[in-house]
């Protein structure tokens, strides 16, 4: 008994310390700016580096230091991890991992290539992407397409354990990068277009044994919600089992809410944050209870969850798009920052949602502080009601109100979202967010579909085109003030900016373009300082690190992903060269009234195939003479 109470005291001490729950090796690695320790740079997901050897003055001298081909041609998302002398890079299916020696740049220390059933490939809705590995406790964690989570020895690449997280014959796959907190590694699930029921699952980092799984839909016990304790908009949820009652029949069992975005963590509050995706079929009529939108939130799809990493219990929830009608798949990353709002220092979470609103919430309580459009052309809702947290939906753009087999036209943003998986960056120096965005609208016609396990479960015909009456391009790179909810500056881009951003103490922000350019801009005003064309379009994230005291910038090129559908059509054949161009031109015959004549500002709109081809390549840059 005496021993027990002593143990309790010790645990209590750890609990108060808070960060004792983080993973020590991750904390140590991310505290050292010479490393790029996690996919998002740190637990908070800021993608910011305190390095300043490459800065606004000398970035013009940036040049290629070395390159490395991954040997895989599909879309390369995610980015390189650097810890000490070792760099870890990954590829899309077949999900190779390379450990490269930075002392002899590009020399392969080890290579891992899992053997996977190729029938996994076609159940990956939007190319065979993978968003990268996690490194902790001398292990590399890889979430393979075929739902295998594998732990490798970081020094040798030897398999330590494997766990099976899903079943691809039911449409389940893995694409997201794992997160490690203390002795657990967290993985989600992909397959929102296959009627998959989403979940987040924790595995023991030492044994690979499942510790807990929290579903996105279904009874409270499955979702790990306590309606008396878990809060929503600052109050306990109250009602039981909303994850069942807000769905017709057993639709919640194929209710999506997949969890393929990035996960972040607050070591002090000891909470992990992630978003859940679209609610199953894209046909809202099939998800309506009694044909009544007000009964059909489809909880807990489209929801930001704050969970206890130990138990999985939900501390708070916030549903961004109740009863989705547009595939505004709510998985985007939740970036943690400490900023001043109304003269008060607040611990916030900022989410640039697919639906075109940027949300600033108190990350301890889930209180909604700011919700504003981060692309002024967003039109499906006028605003977010700050009392209820709900969007005010415009009937004209409601695909449910317009009905099945009716084509709803001119919805902004498109299903791709104002932002998709491409992670934004927060600079503590400026207090601003730097956000890669899409600038694309759509026509959306829902219709009835049947569910078959392992087959696509969509039920909507969608066409997309550059935002009408704008600059003609399909993307913007913006600086965002999260306290005011305002765009500070915006750079138009010809194509969607599908690459993760980087900010640095040196005053330079970086992003990649689908044509393959790495672009460096002044964080103050967005003025371009430098650009370089890499071998293929960039949908990966730009990272930075130092080796032997010298700062480097590193990125994976390799066009593909959802951006590669239609966009990349021109890559395969001559007559398809204008594919995206065709696809984005509204059909004149149906008279959507959208003008595409004013394409001047960004230059004539051309097919991506005229700019880049497939190819997975790592490019590492440096300024040779760094002072």
């Amino acid at each position, binding site marked *: 008994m005496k021993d027990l109470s002593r143990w309790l005291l010790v645990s209590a001490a750890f609990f108060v310390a808070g960060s004792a729950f983080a993973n020590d090796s991750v904390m140590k690695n991310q505290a050292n700016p010479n490393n790029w320790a996690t996919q998002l740079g740190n637990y908070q997901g800021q993608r910011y580096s305190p390095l300043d050897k490459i800065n606004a003055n000398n970035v013009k001298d940036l040049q290629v230091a070395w390159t490395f081909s991954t040997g895989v041609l599909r879309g390369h998302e995610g980015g390189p991890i650097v810890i000490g002398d070792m760099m870890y890079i990954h590829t899309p299916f077949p999900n190779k991992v390379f450990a490269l020696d930075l002392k002899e740049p590009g020399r392969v220390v080890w290579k891992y290539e899992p053997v996977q059933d190729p029938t996994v490939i076609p159940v990956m809705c939007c*190319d065979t992407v993978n968003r990268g590995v996690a490194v902790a406790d001398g292990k590399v964690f890889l979430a393979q397409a075929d739902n295998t989570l594998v732990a490798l020895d970081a020094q040798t690449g030897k398999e330590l354990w494997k766990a099976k997280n899903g079943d691809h014959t039911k449409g389940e796959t893995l694409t997201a990068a794992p997160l490690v907190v203390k002795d657990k590694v967290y993985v989600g699930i992909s397959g929102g277009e296959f009627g998959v029921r989403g979940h987040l699952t924790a595995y023991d980092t030492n044994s690979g044994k499942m510790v807990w799984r929290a579903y996105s839909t279904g009874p409270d016990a499955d979702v790990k919600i306590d309606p008396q304790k878990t809060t929503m908009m600052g109050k306990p949820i109250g009602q039981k089992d909303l994850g069942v009652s807000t769905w017709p029949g057993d639709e919640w069992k194929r209710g999506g809410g997949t969890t393929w975005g990035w996960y972040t963590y607050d070591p002090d509050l000891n909470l992990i944050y992630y978003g859940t995706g679209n609610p199953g079929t894209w046909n809202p009529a099939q998800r309506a209870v009694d044909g009544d939108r007000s009964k059909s939130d489809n909880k807990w799809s489209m929801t930001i969850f704050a969970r206890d990493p130990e138990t999985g219990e939900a501390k708070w929830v916030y549903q961004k798009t109740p009863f989705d009608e547009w595939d505004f798949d709510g998985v985007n990353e939740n970036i943690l920052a400490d900023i001043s709002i109304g003269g008060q220092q607040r611990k916030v979470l900022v989410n640039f949602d697919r639906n075109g609103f940027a949300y600033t919430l108190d990350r301890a309580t889930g209180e909604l502080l700011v919700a504003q459009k981060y692309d002024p052309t967003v039109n499906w809702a006028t605003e977010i009601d700050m009392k209820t947290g709900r969007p005010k939906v415009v009937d004209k753009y409601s695909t449910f109100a317009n009905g099945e087999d009716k084509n709803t036209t001119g919805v902004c943003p498109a299903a791709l979202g104002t932002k998709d998986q491409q992670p934004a960056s927060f600079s503590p120096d400026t207090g601003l967010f730097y956000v890669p965005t899409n600038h694309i609208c759509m026509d959306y016609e829902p219709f009835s*579909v049947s569910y078959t396990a392992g*087959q*696509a479960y969509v039920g909507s015909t969608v066409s*997309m085109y550059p935002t009408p009456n704008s600059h003609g391009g399909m993307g913007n790179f913006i600086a965002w003030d999260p306290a005011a909810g305002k765009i500070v500056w915006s750079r138009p881009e010809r194509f969607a900016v599908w690459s993760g951003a980087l900010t640095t103490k040196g005053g330079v922000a970086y992003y990649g373009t689908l044509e393959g350019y790495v672009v460096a801009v002044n964080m103050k005003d967005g003025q371009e300082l430098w650009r370089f064309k890499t071998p293929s379009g960039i949908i990966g994230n730009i990272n930075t690190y130092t080796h032997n005291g010298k700062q480097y910038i590193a990125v994976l090129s390799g*066009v593909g992903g959802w951006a590669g559908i*239609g966009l990349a059509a021109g890559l*395969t054949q001559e007559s398809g060269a204008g594919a995206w161009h065709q*696809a984005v031109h509204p059909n*004149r015959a149906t008279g959507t009234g959208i003008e595409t004549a004013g394409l001047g500002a960004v230059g004539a709109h051309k097919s991506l195939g005229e700019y880049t081809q497939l190819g997975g390549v790592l490019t590492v840059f440096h300024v040779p003479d760094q002072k």
Partner: protein
Amino acid sequence: MTMKDIVGLPARVLALALLSVAVAGPAAADKDAPYTKDGEPTYTVKDGQVDRGTYNGYRRFHSTCHTCHGFDATGSSFAPALVDSLKRLNFQQFSEVVINGRQVAGATGDRVMPSFGMDPNVAQHLEDIYRYLKARADGALPGGRPQRIGS
């Protein structure tokens, strides 16, 4: 019946069954789902408007198939442009690929087409998807959303 059974055997049978339906089909009105004299599903495009079957094919294609084969069947970075493939494939060959799936190993990695034999959103609309794709491959139909005849 398991997935494997479907993948293994009955493709030809199914395709033939579909063909026989086609042969038995009525002489087509322009606005319905037309067939050629040989019993192949075909399309009608008049003043930029299409028959109901082709229109349905457009919708079904852009629900399931376009996620790999691209908008307007123009392909993607990981699946071929069917505006080309359908220049070579007749309805029976098309049906076999869609029902059985296909796997091609090549220098650019495995390309895998799943089997849609068990997917009612595709299998029940094979003729109409073929109509749409054939119209696209023949250059009879531009990209984008077509209109139904008489709409």
